[in-house]
């Protein structure tokens, strides 16, 4: 059986890119929504 490392790297590489992209999407969305929230009124 040949080593087939290329297939292994492709599978893990695609998974890493997809998971990192989703994580970044979540982080950006959270930041955008947090910035849009009205600031809490300050206590006197």
């Amino acid at each position, binding site marked *: 059986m040949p080593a087939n490392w290329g297939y292994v790297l492709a599978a893990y590489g695609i998974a890493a890119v997809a*998971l990192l992209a989703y994580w970044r999407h979540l982080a950006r969305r959270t930041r955008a929504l947090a910035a849009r*929230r009205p600031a809490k009124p300050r206590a006197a």
Partner: protein
Amino acid sequence: MTRALGWLTVLGLVAGLAAGFGYAPREAVQGNVQRIMYLHVPAVLTAYLAFGLVLLGSIGYLASRRAGWDRLAGAAGEIGVLFTGLTIVSGSIWGKPTWGTWWTWDARLTSTAVLFLVYVGYLLLRSLIEEPDARARYAAVVGILGAVNIPIVHFSVKWWRALHQPSTILGPERSPIDPAIGLALFVNWVAFTLLFAYFLSRRMEIARLEEQT
């Protein structure tokens, strides 16, 4: 809390890679390409978990009409689609050197593709309805009906003649997997479950913020 879970997830994923590439031996028949299993199997188990939570959240919403259940279902559905996509892609890459083809209309592959499309439809439905109560109600119905596909995917290799191998870890018989390979698979499954919990926590927080703005 979410931050700590994030770091725990990173630790789990590093341990998973070390177990899959360092600790687990080279498989005797398939060689190194079998190491895709440490990604492929945890990904599908995470997808099952996600769609199980869609079912739970959908039933919870219809029973109580509380928005928290709908947030759970919506968040889990999105992450479930991501992990089903990873399952299909990693399985296809694994299939090429072992079966000689990227894709075949085998019962397991076809039912997984249907599962993926059903939940893509679920997410599309959620994005098309503006009114929150109607969106949650219709999505809950689709979330419950969609869950019918989960046992079909899992048992497809038993019910129909398939090219895909039968279940080795969630099957009725004792698993024939080598203990070192089994342990590496377990570590990766834990890591993926942690990753799912982390994504779910962040996605539900986004849904909560969206309701407030």
